[in-house]
């Protein structure tokens, strides 16, 4: 989230698209309702009429996988009717930048496409520079090659009738949504966009979110209270685990992993590749070197490039992400799998194929509270033949969240501490203890090795105490970072150094533990202004509660709205002050040429309306991998930058055989793969059965009654479920046909107190062109009554 949960109450209009917080983030609704009590308007856009839709002023029906068309039409409406925030767009975004003549767009394709590689040469979309290397701009936004004009032209194709022919939204409703949301472009008004996996889990997921960001920038809704682009994250610490680099291509703090590319042969070459020449990221070498000092301590020296070659280098160009990992397992390239609270047998796409792949492993380690479908994939009840599966499985019992201590980071980036309330149950242990004991054992095994390949293990420091129980305070101090000589805690990430004199496990968290106080433990719930609760816990970065808050003030540094003050320039004191920690150099005044550059992480300091990601600099609608109609916007059906994995893992269904559009979702009473919630009595009793929601019209066509046992099939598999015949789904009237749409929860599996068919046995094994997130949210299927 750019903003945070309490801040939702300051919005004038909230648009919830691809999320259902009333059921999946129920307490967030406390703050949404406060906005509505003050006269705010709620828009809900979803394929299904959810409990969130029930609370909304207007509900827009949207076929799964058509967000870019939906938002594109809104952007067109705003541009055509000049409803955007003019000063903000001209001064705070890259609308005025002139794009190179090599940029073009024609019939769904941008310039620079390589068909063989399914990728673009992004240099074709670069900004035009003058002789001194400065980006050319037209502040009047009239140059036909400026971002604003290119965007206007691009989106002019997203007229209302074409859009609703794709999305299936009623025209009157769509226009109402455009008008209501565009009203936040007025100076002083705030609109917020809330999204979740309904936005991301598509082959165009990243461009869906880019569309939301473009809309928000046009309306001047970023950086202000009650605004923002807000991802409603689904796990208690999925924000933290991402921050801490548990992804193949990220180390902590959103920095890159070295590869075998030529540039990466030396640390300096690698840093040159990953460090931009402008924007706050110019400090990356300080953060990277400090991180390596936290890994290798005194063994990271200037003469060994601070331990750079100890780090594993990815094979250049190889994708190691979740689906490709299972592809590798399918090809028998993987021998071992370690699972720390993870259940892909229920949560992974095309789960049936992923489960099959598990038996190719030599060994598996599962660390969990409950027996999961993944850890028990070899059992008879999983449909397996145990004797034929040679995988050795070790299950390590983990303790629950309040049986240990440590911090988690919520969606609003608040790092909150959890104290230990009780001893771990039985012989279970905290994951911290498990990884500590494992690391100590492995360190011991490698202790006397002189093999150069073992040097990273020997060089890695592990100084968290000599007992089996690690001292968590020492871990916290290392994450924040300290001076290597004096061992004094570093106060802020601005103090980190690239000469090896400081360490910091994760630069974005540097500052949570200055001196001798762990600020994630703070419990002062005083609202000192704009519900930012600056003394409650700690928010990264630098305890800022609203990102890019410089943009909450106008070109003179005064708040756009008196009732919505983020930070303001205080001329008398010569600094930025207000209700938040400035996301800006605190004493940078109006005389500085970069005074009006609020987006400090970006080269040039402007919000990116135009940004080069894999499938193009401006979002364009493509149909999902499986879809019921030809693309109305171009002759290009699928996102041209999507990469394919193992063919055998990814069977594709055709609309003639699977005519129904399907999507998956979550329920209040269960959580993710259900491993925790289906193993508890009360929650199991509240929702004991797998069900599929189908419209009354589809039920009639198929001869299905409410509560009938049905079978849902896709090109990947079949599952059994109960039919829930509902008015929440309606047939979609598209351009040239009517299609049915169904939806189902994905929480079920064969373990726990209650069991049921896993929706992910149906979902495709293909993902987004940038993030490789699977396209769980839009696929084709058929339903029939079970005999």
């Amino acid at each position, binding site marked *: 989230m750019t903003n945070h*949960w309490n801040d939702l109450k300051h919005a004038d209009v909230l648009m919830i698209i691809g999320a259902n917080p009333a059921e*999946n*983030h129920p*307490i967030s609704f406390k703050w949404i309702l406060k906005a509505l009590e003050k006269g705010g308007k709620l828009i809900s856009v979803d394929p299904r009429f959810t409990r969130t839709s029930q609370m909304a002023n207007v509900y827009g029906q949207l076929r799964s996988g058509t967000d870019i068309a939906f938002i594109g039409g809104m952007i067109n409406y705003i541009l055509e009717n000049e409803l955007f925030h003019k000063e903000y767009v001209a001064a705070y975004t890259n609308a005025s930048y002139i794009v190179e003549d090599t940029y073009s767009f024609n019939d769904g394709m941008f310039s620079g496409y390589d068909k063989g590689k399914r990728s673009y040469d992004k240099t074709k979309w670069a900004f035009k520079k003058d002789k001194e290397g400065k980006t050319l701009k037209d502040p009047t936004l009239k140059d036909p090659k400026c971002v604003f004009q290119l965007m206007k032209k691009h989106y002019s194709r997203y007229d209302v009738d074409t859009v609703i022919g794709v999305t299936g939204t009623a025209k009157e409703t769509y226009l109402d949504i455009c008008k209501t949301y565009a009203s936040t472009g007025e100076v002083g008004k705030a609109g917020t966009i809330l999204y979740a996996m309904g936005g991301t889990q598509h082959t165009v997921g990243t461009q869906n979110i880019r569309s939301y960001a473009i809309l928000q920038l046009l309306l001047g809704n970023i950086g202000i209270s009650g605004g923002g682009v807000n991802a409603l994250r689904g796990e*208690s*610490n*999925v924000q*933290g*685990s*991402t921050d*801490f680099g548990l992804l*193949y291509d990220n180390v902590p703090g959103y920095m890159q*992993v070295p590869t075998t590319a030529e540039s990466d042969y030396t640390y300096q070459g690698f840093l040159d590749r990953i460090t931009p020449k402008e924007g706050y990221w110019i400090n990356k070498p300080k953060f990277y070197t400090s991180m390596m000092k936290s890994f290798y301590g005194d063994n990271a020296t200037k003469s060994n490039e601070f331990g750079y070659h100890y*780090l*594993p*280098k990815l094979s250049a160009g190889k994708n*190691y992400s979740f689906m490709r990992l299972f592809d*590798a397992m399918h090809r028998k390239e993987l021998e*071992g*799998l*370690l699972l*720390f*609270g993870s259940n*892909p047998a229920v949560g992974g796409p095309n789960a049936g194929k992923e489960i099959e792949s598990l038996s190719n492993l030599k060994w598996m380690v599962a660390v969990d509270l409950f027996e999961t479908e993944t850890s028990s994939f070899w059992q008879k009840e999983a449909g397996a033949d*145990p004797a034929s*599966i040679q*995988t*050795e*499985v070790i*299950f*390590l*019992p983990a303790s*629950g969240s309040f049986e240990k201590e*440590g911090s*988690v980071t*919520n969606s609003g980036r608040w790092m909150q501490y*959890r*104290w230990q*309330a009780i001893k771990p149950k*039985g*012989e279970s242990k*905290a*994951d*911290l203890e498990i990884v500590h004991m*494992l*690391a100590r054992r492995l360190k011991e095994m*490698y202790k006397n090795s002189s093999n150069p390949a073992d040097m*990273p*293990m020997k060089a*890695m420091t592990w100084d*968290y105490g000599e007992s089996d129980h690690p001292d968590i305070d020492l871990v916290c101090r290392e*994450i924040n970072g300290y001076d290597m000589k004096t061992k004094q805690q570093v106060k802020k990430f601005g103090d980190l150094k690239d000469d090896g004199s400081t360490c910091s*496990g994760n630069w974005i968290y540097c500052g949570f533990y200055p001196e001798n106080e762990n600020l994630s433990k703070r*419990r002062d*719930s005083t609202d000192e202004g704009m519900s930012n609760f600056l003394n*409650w816990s700690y928010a990264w970065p630098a305890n800022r509660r609203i990102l890019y808050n410089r943009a909450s003030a106008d070109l003179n540094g005064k708040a756009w709205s008196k009732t919505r003050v983020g930070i303001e320039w205080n001329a008398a004191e010569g600094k930025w002050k207000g209700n938040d920690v400035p996301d800006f150099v605190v004493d940078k005044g109006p005389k500085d040429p970069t005074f009006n550059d609020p987006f400090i992480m970006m080269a040039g300091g402007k919000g990116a309306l135009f940004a080069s990601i894999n499938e193009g600099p401006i979002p364009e609608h493509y149909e999902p991998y499986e879809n019921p109609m030809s693309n109305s916007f171009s002759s290009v059906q699928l996102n041209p930058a999507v990469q394919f994995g193992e063919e055998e893992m990814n069977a594709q269904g055709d609309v003639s055989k699977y005519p129904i559009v399907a999507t998956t979702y979550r329920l209040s009473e269960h959580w993710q793969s259900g491993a*925790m919630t289906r193993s508890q009595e*009360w929650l199991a009793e509240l929702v004991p059965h797998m069900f599929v929601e189908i419209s009354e019209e589809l039920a009639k066509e198929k001869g299905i009654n409410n509560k009938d046992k049905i079978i849902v099939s896709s090109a990947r598999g079949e599952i059994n479920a109960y039919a829930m015949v509902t008015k929440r789904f309606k047939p979609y009237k598209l351009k040239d046909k009517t299609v049915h749409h169904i939806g189902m929860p994905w929480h079920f599996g064969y373990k*726990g107190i209650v069991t049921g068919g896993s929706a992910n046995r149906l979902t495709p094994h293909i993902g987004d062109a940038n993030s*490789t997130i699977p396209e769980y949210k839009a696929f084709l299927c058929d339903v029939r009554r079970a005999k």
Partner: protein
Amino acid sequence: MEFTRRQFLKLSGAVAATLAVVELGFDDKGAQAKTREFKIAELKPTPTICPYCAVGCGILVYSKGDDVVYTEGDPDHPINEGSLCSKGTTVRQVYTSEKRITKPMYRAPGSDKWKEVDWDFALEKVAKNIKETRDRTFIHKEKGLTVNRTDSIAYLGGAALDNEECHLLQKLFRAGLGLTYIEHQARI
């Protein structure tokens, strides 16, 4: 009442329970007499954060010995102000569920059942498996470049863990052991 809600946690046992009751609008003196019967009257609440979604609601846990007696929404928490959803409300059962696995277990190749084992056995197995696969599949150099990696062991998980755990996991598996297949729920 002179106490602010923030002071609530600093107060112990009976007094805290009395305050909570008074805030619900009960008669002060009557409630004070009643508190002696409350199971949590003698217990100190421990603040925690809900383990499910990322709203990050505060929960107070009242435990005694090896039992979680009671849990409730943290009234001081600025986001949930004491309220909780169906999952947050039932968080006690994450501890009390009979389905919890409380001992390490081992499944031998080809076997159709788990066998309970001790921690020493389990950890030794894990460490040996990792070392054996890593050492055999490890690529130290490739075309003259030190690459220090293994593409034969994968790591998954982290979204339900603490930050401190994530830090140590990424440190051990990437910086120490050289794994490349490191992924978790954020990707899916």
